[in-house]
């Protein structure tokens, strides 16, 4: 798709957003029972990461294989708050030290570690959901992009971070819950998050947050920043020689991607009711890249569909044919790279979008001359 229009929304964009909104807010809730809806809510939390990856990788050319780190950090911040709320002295009266999370008690800790303390307040926890991943991303970004490390080196080093964080969480069982993660989360400010009604509410909250992120992403893509990102991806040196500070743009977009991932992680914790290192490591991080690639690495709307489709396929395939799933996923990686580099969005742009445009243009031609946007989008 060419960036022919400077407007925030071309007609194609409006169609894309409207259809997605209809799917997320009307079609899925109407057709699915509450268990399946919660499952799709979980898939949609991965869409946050995928949208961030569209900005970083599709637009900016920065492939991060460590998005699971940010997803996990956001999720853990939320889980720490919920865990503290669940671990009241009354609920944990049977422990040798009542009032601390159960896994700490199992690991012979007798007091809450100091860095757990602030997570007693919801405001702090909500801020941390975004701030902690962004801080990490900022440190990594400054260290890497200022030294002009990019491409495959960046990918390998972010992957190393995913490995480091996983080993750390699993190793420090007493502080983090170890390989089981933080489980048995019950209430948010007294509101039980385990009921069907609560899960439904959380699904809509998740949807609204996802659309906010999509709007931010759309704004970034259509702004000057978005076009600079694409220019940097294609000819980094030329942008640098034109006087732009390439590293700062990269750091910003990497932090934005991390913030999206953090929000997604927090919503995951709320909807699924636990957080564990299995969502942080190398394997989930690289799977998040495939959500983005399947949807189309250049399309934020496509990324959401990618996350939904791949996860839905994963759940239904691994339920009935567990041994086929890895073949499917592996084949998907290869096919999406070799055959459809622009993913679903590319197929849509090549085959469906021109037809819709023709249809709409014909209609508007009956009334008057086709407007600029239609022509621009058709180009």
């Amino acid at each position, binding site marked *: 798709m060419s960036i022919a229009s400077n407007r925030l929304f071309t007609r194609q964009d409006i169609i894309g957003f409207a259809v997605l909104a209809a799917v997320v807010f009307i079609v899925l809730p109407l057709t699915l029972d509450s268990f399946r809806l919660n499952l799709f809510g979980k898939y949609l939390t991965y869409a946050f990461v995928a949208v961030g990856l569209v900005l970083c990788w599709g637009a900016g050319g920065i492939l991060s294989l460590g998005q699971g780190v940010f997803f996990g950090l956001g999720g853990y911040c939320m889980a720490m708050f919920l865990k503290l709320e669940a671990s009241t002295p009354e609920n944990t009266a049977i422990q040798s030290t009542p009032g601390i999370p159960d896994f700490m008690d199992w690991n012979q800790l007798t007091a809450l570690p100091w860095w757990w303390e602030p997570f007693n307040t919801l405001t702090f926890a909500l801020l941390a959901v975004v701030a902690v991943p962004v801080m990490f991303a900022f440190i990594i970004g400054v260290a890497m992009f200022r030294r002009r*490390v990019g*491409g495959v080196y960046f990918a*390998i080093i972010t992957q190393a971070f995913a490995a480091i964080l996983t080993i*750390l969480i699993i190793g420090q069982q007493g502080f983090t819950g170890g390989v089981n993660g933080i489980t048995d989360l019950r209430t948010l400010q007294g509101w039980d998050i385990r009921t069907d009604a609560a899960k439904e509410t959380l699904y809509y909250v998740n949807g609204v947050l996802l659309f906010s992120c999509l709007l931010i992403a759309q704004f970034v893509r259509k702004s000057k920043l978005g076009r600079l990102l694409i220019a940097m991806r294609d000819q980094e040196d030329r942008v640098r020689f034109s006087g732009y500070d390439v590293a700062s743009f990269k750091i910003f977009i990497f932090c934005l991607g991390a913030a999206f991932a953090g929000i997604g992680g927090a919503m995951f914790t709320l909807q699924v009711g636990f957080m564990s290192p299995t969502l942080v490591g*190398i394997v989930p991080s690289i799977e998040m890249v495939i959500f983005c690639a399947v949807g189309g690495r250049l399309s934020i709307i496509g990324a959401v569909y990618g996350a939904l489709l791949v996860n839905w396929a994963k759940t239904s395939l691994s339920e009935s044919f567990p041994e086929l799933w890895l073949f499917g996923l592996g084949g998907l990686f290869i096919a999406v790279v070799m055959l459809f580099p622009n993913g679903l969005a590319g197929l849509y742009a090549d085959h469906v979008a021109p037809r819709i445009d023709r249809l709409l243009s014909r209609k508007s031609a009956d009334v008057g001359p086709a407007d600029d946007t239609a022509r621009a989008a058709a180009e």
Partner: protein
Amino acid sequence: MFADYSMSELGAIFAMQGFAGLILFSVFVLMALGLAIIFGQMGVINMAHGEFMILGAYMTYLTSTLFEAYLPGLFSIYFFIAMIVAFFASGLLGLFVEWSMIRHLYKRPLDTLLATWGLSLILQQVYRSVFGAREVGVSIPDWMMGSLPLTDLVEIPINGIFVMVLAVAISLAVYYLMFRSSWGLQVRAISQNRVMADAVGINTAWTDRLTFGIGCGVAGVAGSAFTMIGSTGPTAGQLYIVDTFLVVVFGGAGSLLGTIASAFSISQAQSIMEFFLSGSMAKVLTLLVVVGILMIRPQGLFSLKLRK
């Protein structure tokens, strides 16, 4: 913390720990050599590298089972044949993968990464379907079992020595291939200036394929060596891949000596810290230090001076 130990005990602990580090070093070198060829010279990220190693390990397992059943008399030397089988099995698979996949993606290194990750998932599932989900171990010939007592306190396992000898031998072989053979000359010429190499009549497409195949073959031999010190499971390859890439990047891509030096420093740091800290914290600290140094010196320890 040392108060409880006598001097000789401390010496023995350090010697044993240092030796454990040397075995880890050999393992890292074996893993990294194939990758140093593929990533260092061609710039291709092969995320399925671990699975090529595991293929070598399974080939060794098959060979040992065959020898046990049909040629028990020659069982003591089966391992050398197994290594050759492993080299050719992994190497041929490498040639095929290069021909069917990698050659279309040379211009898109990040996409190669994703495609080879997909390949690694498929290979894992193939191993699981063919050999089962449980880990398999090979029977080691008698002469490789036991250990050499150096002093009363220090004992050195023979299979560890064998893996170290193998690491040295394979390093020498790779060195010879890279710097003394005409193939190595061509590979280095291509990595310095592909267009020029093409112009002077080097068949770059074929050299690329051969390079990829030899890199994968070396990975297969490494996997074969691993069966001497551990068992093999379908997902074992994935455990190694991050370490291996860090070793190669830390050493400086393109530098064989750098790869060996970085394997040495990472393995020694890790095994010495393991004595003071828990295993996981030692690993975390080692990785953090490596990543930290890479942030300060992105080109790695030893970098080739190349005109870009």
